[in-house]
């Protein structure tokens, strides 16, 4: 049986005494404050921690234990700390990609259709904003002073997009305004040439809104979504990727979080040949809370990658990250990298991140890399869990032995698994649509 899961686990630069039990596979990988804020949640059966599959039938094909990742023969360029990654508006600051960079090592560059090498001067997907009501929507030139004020590119494609875009869509929820309804940003691609796009979403102080960025059609798109969550604001941003089969989409979605703000970010990646999202939440003042959810369903040949960053740079903020992925079909590949940074000043931080993957067929591969860096011991709690499980013959047998046909059995499992994330969207019409999309994905896999 081919290798189906792979997980690397990187205990990073935590001060001595704060790394607990990293070598113990029976425990959830867990880094915690010495205060004893260690919580050991029960493991889900059918899942094993850190990417190993439970099924006895798969024994031997799985890689047990914590290990260093190797990817081809060439060494990956190491990074001392996630916090030291280069950030710049200048494309020249990012060398040409080789695929050996820490943050590109899982991405098949050949399939980027030139996003990392070419001028991004194709026509960008069209944007139509509806449901705005009391929300301001503008199209502005690249010279607008608000653009780039809150987010700085962290990789070459993001810098290239910044370098090239000509006009940006700016959505502003005015101060103390509760948006009338969901703001739907419909992004429709019609061209295959590499293009750049910039979107700025600002939730001003004490405003409240749900903004859905809904990607479909065909495109080769480098995109920056810049998000500002003002003091006391409550913003939900949902990014849905239901692209056509050939689309390539690389999107940086950086959010700057103000004092006592609430921010929820939801990623739903279903369609496209290669989708690579890098959502970040950067705390800039105390008292804020962030939830980041993700749902991805990769079928044969699809590459769906999500690399997120939660940057706890200030005291007393809270973050929760939950990403769930399902994979089916030969060559389905998903990548989840969850970087959580608790900087020296970030006392009182409370953070937990989880990634779970469900492999439905042979030949699919889920990479899952949680990475927690802790520079202060004075925190409420910090932990992470990563588990990749296989829906195996024993699960199927159990359900079928109760009269449930195979197709229904698989649906039952996947729906149950992914529902947790869909339920977080809280836009009923969208939840319904996405549930249906998931069903379609399942059906398309001939399961």
């Amino acid at each position, binding site marked *: 049986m081919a290798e189906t899961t792979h997980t690397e686990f990187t205990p990073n630069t935590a001060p001595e005494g704060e790394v607990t039990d990293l070598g113990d596979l029976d425990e959830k990988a867990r880094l915690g404050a010495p205060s004893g804020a260690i919580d050991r949640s*029960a493991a*889900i*059966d*059918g*899942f094993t921690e850190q990417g190993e599959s439970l099924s006895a039938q798969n024994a031997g094909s799985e890689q047990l234990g914590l290990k260093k990742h190797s990817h081809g023969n060439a060494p990956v360029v190491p990074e001392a700390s996630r916090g030291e990654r280069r950030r710049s508006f200048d494309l020249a600051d990012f060398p040409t990609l080789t695929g050996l960079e820490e943050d590109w090592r899982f991405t098949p560059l050949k399939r980027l259709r030139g996003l990392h090498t070419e001028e991004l001067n194709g026509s960008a997907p069209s944007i139509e904003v509806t449901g705005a009501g009391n929300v301001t929507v503008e199209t502005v030139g690249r010279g607008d002073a608000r653009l780039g004020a809150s987010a700085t590119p962290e990789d070459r494609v993001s810098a290239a997009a910044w370098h090239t875009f000509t006009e940006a869509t700016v959505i502003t929820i005015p101060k103390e305004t509760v948006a009338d309804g969901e703001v739907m940003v419909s992004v429709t691609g019609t061209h295959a040439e590499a293009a750049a796009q910039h979107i700025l979403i600002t939730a001003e102080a004490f405003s409240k809104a749900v903004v859905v960025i809904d990607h479909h059609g065909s495109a080769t798109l480098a995109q920056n979504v810049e998000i500002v969550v003002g003091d006391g604001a409550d913003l939900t941003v949902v990014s849905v990727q239901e692209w056509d089969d050939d689309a390539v989409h690389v999107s940086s979605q950086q959010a700057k979080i103000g004092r006592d703000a609430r921010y929820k970010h939801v990623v739903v990646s279903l369609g496209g040949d290669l989708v690579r999202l890098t959502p970040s939440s950067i705390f800039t003042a105390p008292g804020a809370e962030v939830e980041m959810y993700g749902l991805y369903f990769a079928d044969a040949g699809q590459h769906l990658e999500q690399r997120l960053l939660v940057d706890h740079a200030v005291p007393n903020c809270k973050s929760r990250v939950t990403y769930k992925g399902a994979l089916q079909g030969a060559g389905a590949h998903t990548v989840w990298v969850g970087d959580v940074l608790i900087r020296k000043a970030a006392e009182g931080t409370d953070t937990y991140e989880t990634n779970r993957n*469900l492999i439905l067929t042979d030949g699919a591969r889920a990479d899952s890399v949680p990475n927690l860096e802790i520079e202060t011991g004075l925190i409420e709690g910090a932990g992470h869990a990563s588990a990749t*499980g296989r*829906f195996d*013959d*024993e*699960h199927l*047998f*159990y*359900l*079928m*032995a*109760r*009269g*449930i*046909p*195979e197709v*229904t059995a698989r649906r*039952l*499992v*996947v*729906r*149950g*698994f*992914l*529902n947790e994330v869909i339920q977080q969207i809280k836009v009923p019409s969208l939840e319904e649509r996405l549930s249906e999309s998931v069903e379609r994905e399942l059906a398309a896999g001939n399961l």
Partner: protein
Amino acid sequence: MSTLEIKDLHVSIDTEQGNVPILKGVTLTINTGETHAIMGPNGSGKSTLASTIAGHPRYKVDGGTITLDGEDVLSMSVDERARAGLFLAMQYPVEVPGVTMTNFLRTAKTALDGEAPSLRHWTKDVKTAMAQLRIDADFAQRNVNEGFSGGEKKRVEILQLELFRPRFAILDETDSGLDVDALKVVSEGVNREHSKGEMGTLLITHYTRILRYIKPDFVHVFVAGRIAEQGGPELADQLEAEGYDRFTAQTPVEA
């Protein structure tokens, strides 16, 4: 009345060391209303028999037949067998990620009956059955078998037996891992269903203690993939007193 008939069944499994024969000619007939106990030492092939009846893909049938009222069970898929009325309470029920008990039970019932159960009655039936088996109400919202103790898993198997109402129930060591109280509760569940007179029962067990609660009509001693001896309930008492030694001694141990 229904009949489940097993004739000269030969079953093997493929292992890394090659093909290993496990069942070597099993013949057994169960009618509605009857309770047959199969007793035998560890590794004698009891679970293999149970899993083969249910259609587990790991077991290869090399010869013999299984029929349900004359219908060829071996040609049915796993779910078809269940819909035909066969139910296996498993020795080691698996935990199914992502599926709540409620959702699972309703989906299974719908598949078995060919139509969704009336919601009002169904909810009540589930609640009542859970209460009788002393299963906490909050289990309904938990994922199937996830984090359940060994005893809880067994109770949930019997819960399904009572809700799905099969024509033939095969209980694979449902008694093992149960304390006395749980054993009673579970046995009562089986007896409740059996007393309706519409079910035949194949009770696989290693120990005689469950036979104090569930009275078998026939006892079969299973050794090395065959039925070595059969008789009435008195055979169980004899086994309790003498153990399996007499039978295992008769059968040369295979390497």
